[in-house]
């Protein structure tokens, strides 16, 4: 199994608070990996470290064989932030075409990405007039344009209606089948079952790193939400008090 992302002993402080306490994990290439954990657990910070925009205290992050944030990676990593980072005063098409130009691609590639996220009918609308779900899909389209080898998506399915959510997950798996590596964060445990592999994070520490089936087996339950709870209790029990 090839590794797309390798994180070693990653420590990150934000302000005076330690947000990540020495995380080590690996994300397999060509798979959909879910980064799951409650809000405030450090998911976004870990994602920011992987795309190379986070100042880290110590540890290493290697992405597609290079240190995270290397200039060569800017063409190979697509990043969707949690809040949709597209221009609200431009139409969906104008946004997509601008991002296409940044990657040296044409309008055709931009229109294809808009169709891929199901926004073809809204392509001419200003992003500011779209619903929250449409807005985050517009943001997703802009990240998919360059056909990056790695897509890092911070909570892309929040606020989407169930049908679209299923469509997006199908799209993620289709991309993975073509060789794209996806890292998708979520705080909704019912999405965990849709991933090939799971990273469970809580309070800046990794408490699970395995396939959903293996996590179910370790925790002895079919319900991933319950499995997550059991893993948390397990970690707390074995933790040596400081």
């Amino acid at each position, binding site marked *: 199994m090839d590794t797309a992302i390798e994180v070693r002993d990653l420590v990150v402080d934000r*302000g005076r608070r330690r947000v990540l306490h020495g995380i080590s994990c690996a994300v397999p290439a060509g798979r959909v990996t879910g980064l799951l954990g409650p809000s405030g657990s450090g998911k976004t910070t870990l994602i920011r470290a992987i795309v190379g*925009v986070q100042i880290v205290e110590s540890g290493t992050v290697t992405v597609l064989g290079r240190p995270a944030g290397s200039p060569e990676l800017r063409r190979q990593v697509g990043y969707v*932030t949690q809040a949709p980072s597209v*221009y609200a*005063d431009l139409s969906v098409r104008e946004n997509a075409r601008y991002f296409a130009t*940044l*990657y040296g691609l044409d309008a055709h590639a931009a229109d294809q990405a808009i169709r891929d996220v199901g926004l073809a009918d809204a392509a001419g609308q200003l992003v500011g007039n779209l619903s929250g779900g449409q807005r985050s899909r517009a943001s997703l389209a802009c990240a998919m344009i360059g056909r990056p080898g790695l897509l890092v998506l911070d909570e892309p399915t929040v606020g989407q209606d169930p049908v679209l959510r299923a469509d997006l997950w199908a799209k993620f798996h289709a991309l993975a089948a073509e060789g794209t590596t996806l890292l998708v964060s979520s705080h909704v445990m019912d999405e965990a079952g849709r991933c090939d592999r799971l990273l469970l994070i809580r309070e800046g520490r990794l408490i699970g790193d395995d396939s959903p089936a293996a996590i179910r087996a370790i925790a002895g339950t079919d319900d991933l939400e319950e499995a997550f709870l059991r893993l948390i209790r397990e970690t707390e029990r074995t933790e040596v008090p400081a």
Partner: protein
Amino acid sequence: MSVRITLATSGRILRQLRHDRRTVALLILVPALLLSLLYFMYDDAGPTFDRIALIMLGVFPFTIMFLVTSIAMLRERTTGTLERLLTTPLGKVDLLFGYGLAFGLAAAVQGTVAVAAAYWLLGLDTAGNTGLVVLVAVVNAVLGVALGLFCSAFARTEFQAVQFLPVVVLPQLLLCGLFVPRGQMSGWLQAVSDVMPLSYAVEALGQVGAHADPTATLWRDLAVVAGAAVVALVLAAATLRRRTP
């Protein structure tokens, strides 16, 4: 630095502007309306109106573009588009020159309308060419853009960003020679005035007002203003960090 990305960025900024018709109307009409106000204040045309209106043709684009750019850049920071752009092949300089070019073009339209109104409707009279007035206005606007991009790095909110206007623009306006000729100021004030780029823009406009042909002083002053704009853009590039805490 990529010309393609810089031009695409300018195009994107101008498209954003085009969707905001109220801002476009304000950008184009406000300087002309303020000049009309001056015209009535000074009892129709005359030498005092000529002197002040000419200076204002340089001051308005500088002030307006400073304000517009610092807010625009702050929005890039707060909405996360900046963080995203910096994970793409876009270079910092591409972004900043893209802004300079886009708002420089907007300033050219604004300057042309204001100059046309000043000369044809309000009877502004200068010895030199009107085209030179537009040129100084555009270079001055680019200076405003560059300082706006730089200052936006020190503001976290739009509330703070507008507070930089009195800090950066007003001292330059007070000391540029509009209120008291620079030669009559005390030595230390003159020294402060000498390091403020707006002083050179105002001097350049004075040259257009007094001489039929472009003077060496005019070209030197323009070069100083343009140089200050480039320095401010480079400083602004230094404030853009790909990695943040």
